[in-house]
């Protein structure tokens, strides 16, 4: 089998402007959603109490919500989690109550409205008595923890950016480093934008996925740049866009196969991973799909705009040692 039967280098760079405009628009849209809707942070960041309870029959969420409000919980969120019988309840942090006890109090009020089943009337007590909630998970996060997590997350992102820029600048050229990081940060913003648009829950595993994807997509740019450098050294008489086209074309089969494989894992998590891994896999999926686009079709034009040229590689090489051949062998 051979999927990619490409006769000539595909002239990607002819459309460079188009790609950059597309990215700019998606980027701006993502920023817009982030600014207007904001991220829906999980309680790990905001602080609060989260409970996962499971009923034997599908409960009536509205009744649970009302019961909680009646018991003095301001603005509780009640939703299904995974199946219609599993319910996720989020109670925001309140200043006055002793926060560590919230979980127990929520359970108490849940037990007062056993089941919360839709059936009404005389048979209600009989059916709902059997439908008592069983607790599967409680999480309580105090306010100071959440703040720290947000700070640590930002610091981690900063460290990744600096680390990658320094490494790429050292291995390649500052132009490559800067364009790779811009292309991939734009990925991050787009993932966040999608999470803001759909108001998906942004939790710690999602943050981990975003950073892992950042490191992973930079790979993509690295591999293209590697080829660019090699082509610059090996083939004379090509213009910069031609070199970039050649590099992208000759790595495209690997790009798509690798991403396909990684995506297979992410899809598998999306299908089999259940609710707990859902948003993690979602962040990976968006990251991988946009990663192909941005690291190849955004980073390369950026390098071109910044004016990369053959001399930057060949000259540097000759400066190092006399008598070094094209392959880097020294006699």
């Amino acid at each position: 089998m051979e999927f990619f039967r490409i006769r000539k280098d595909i002239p990607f760079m002819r459309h460079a402007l188009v790609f950059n405009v597309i990215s700019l628009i998606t980027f701006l849209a993502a920023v817009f959603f982030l600014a207007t809707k904001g991220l829906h942070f999980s309680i790990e960041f905001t602080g609060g109490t989260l409970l996962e309870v499971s009923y034997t029959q599908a409960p009536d969420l509205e009744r649970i919500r009302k019961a909680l409000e009646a018991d003095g919980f301001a603005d509780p969120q009640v939703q299904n989690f995974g199946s219609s019988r599993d319910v996720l309840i989020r109670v925001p942090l309140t200043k006055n109550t002793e926060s560590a006890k919230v979980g127990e109090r929520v359970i108490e009020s849940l037990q007062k409205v056993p089941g919360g089943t839709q059936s009404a009337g005389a048979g209600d007590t009989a059916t709902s008595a059997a439908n008592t909630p069983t607790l599967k998970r409680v999480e309580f996060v105090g306010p100071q923890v959440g703040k720290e997590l947000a700070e640590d997350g930002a610091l981690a992102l900063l460290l990744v950016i600096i680390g990658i820029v320094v490494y790429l600048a050292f291995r390649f050229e500052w132009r490559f480093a800067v364009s790779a990081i811009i292309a991939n940060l734009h990925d991050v913003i787009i993932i966040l934008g999608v999470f803001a648009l759909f108001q998906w829950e942004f939790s710690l595993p999602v943050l981990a996925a975003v950073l892992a994807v950042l490191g992973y997509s930079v790979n993509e740019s690295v591999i293209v740049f590697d080829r660019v450098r090699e082509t610059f050294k090996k083939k004379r008489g090509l213009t910069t866009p031609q070199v970039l086209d050649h590099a992208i074309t000759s790595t495209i089969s690997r790009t798509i196969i690798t991403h396909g494989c990684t995506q297979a894992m992410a899809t598998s998590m999306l299908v089999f991973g259940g609710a707990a891994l859902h948003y993690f896999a979602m962040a990976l999926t968006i990251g991988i799909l946009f990663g192909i686009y941005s690291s190849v079709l955004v980073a390369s034009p950026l390098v071109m705009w910044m004016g990369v040229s053959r001399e930057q590689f060949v000259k540097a090489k000759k400066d190092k040692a006399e008598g070094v051949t094209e392959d880097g062998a020294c006699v």
Partner: protein
Amino acid sequence: MNRYPLWKNVTVVIALMLGLLYTLPNFFGEVPAVQVSSVKATIKIEPRLLSRIEDVLKSAAVAHNGLYADQNSIRVRLADTDTQLKAKDAIEKALNPDPTDASYSVALNLLSASPKWLSDMHALPMYLGLDLRGGVHFLLQVDMKGAITKRLDSTAADLRSLMRDKNVRHAGINREGQNIAIKFREAELREKAKAVLADNQPDLLLVEAQDGADLKLVATLKPEAHKRIQEFAIKQNITTLHNRINELGVAEPVIQQQGADRIVVQLPGVQDTAKAKDILGRTATLEVRMVDDEASDNPATMELAAKGQPPLGTDYYVERGGRGLLVKKQVVLTGERLTDAQPGFDNQTHEPAVHLTLDSAGARIFKDVTRESVGKRMAILLIEKGKGEVVTAPVIRTEIGGGRVQISGRMSTVEANDVALLLRAGSLAAPMDIIEERTIGPSLGADNIAKGFNSTKWGFIAIAVFMSAYYLLFGLVSVLALSANLLFLVALLSLLQATLTLPGIAAIALTLGMAIDANVLINERVREELRSGSSPQASITAGYERAWATILDSNVTTLIAGVALLIFGSGPVRGFAVVHCLGILTSIFSSVVVSRGLINLIYGRRRKLDKLSIGQLWKPGAESAAAGAAE
């Protein structure tokens, strides 16, 4: 020719064998077990207990599959849950004859079913996080400011008595925020006080100040003293928590310091958060009371008291030596007055002793009481769970002033250590708040394992099918290399006993998905070399060599992200980062070294090789289907 030198082949084989060995325990699953641990700090788990339990089981006719002892517990492996319950009942009855005053906790537990020789090699199954096995997780914040304030309060009290002892007149000693201010009327006195303080309180930093007409000496704790107090407070709180949690009979509790001022408590298998919280927050107290010597010497009264009818105004206790004792109900001192307890030796007799430090109010009371009761006995009791235990009941020889009390007599060094610990462990050095709490039900844990495992399994199968179909033999080798990667990763996680969480399993899946990249790079390079007309053997060499630089570059960038997560991540992110970083390292080895080893094994020795099984090659211009063969 593509051949590995012998050492390289040997390395690969040894790595694979070690990988297999350390992965092995994960396949055995778990068997029921009974775990015995001590509830009281004074009772240690000793080798003698091991043989005692063995005898108990023998006499109860319960067959066991081995006894294991570690520092804190003894575990008995059993065949099934029925014998597990029987064994638990038998041990419980034998070790705790009095159920209301249990010395040991006997808990049901699960143990790895891997054979003993594996466990002896430290080959253990992966350590599952709470989200996979169910349990309670608490993050406690130690109130350091509270610890410092408490210390300053007691220091201020100490200073008052010090000044009195040394006859230095002052106009008031008060704690003002994080300082202690001592006022003086005359500069001369201040100089004198300064000299006294410098000799007796090395932890204090003294600064002279003027406040209106008053001369002041402002004392602050030195930074190193600050640090020491904080470290002590955390250690003390951890000790206290350990003692309390032991009572819960939790199989493998985790109590660790996190950062400068936090403690993580993880209780696998515990579902009752309310009870756990209650126990964590409870305080054990110390009480000093006088012994009713006359009544204690009267055999008739003692006999009645042992039956539960002590004389009015007294309580009956059994001393650690086993002798009964009648103690007056009136409390002389409580543990609140105790600032420290350290094991040590008597200055004169060189007997092991415990040195107690009381705060100034406590010191004054102690001085008065001892002056009035020379020759009488004093009992030091530890009140836990509403029940008291006489730690020691020494005879008062002289008046004891200065707040420094020494308990000695009939104590071994170990006992002195334990008593000191017990007295310290009675209370928390600083208040703590629960700032994070997580409870995961056991069914959810099992569910999470299944989900994580299934995602990895199906993802792996999808990749394996695709790679084998697309790259044929080279694809198969890639899949084998990927399996080796999984093997190494699981082995490393088992060996390091790193906590595996659900995000960790996700990281395994993701790492495998990313690791295949290296093999795709290699295979594509080899194809390219073939396409450009190189001979098969040369293509293999060139393909691997050219791909290596790229693989390294791309893994370094991924690793940078992983390390950043490792440094800044906590909780679920950390679990993810550990696996991710380890996975990147193992993938470099397996996808390059192991796969090359396999390829060398298959093709390396063939002199006349004219075709590689790497899938169909398509060359621009030549549309022939027979392009797979290189010229």
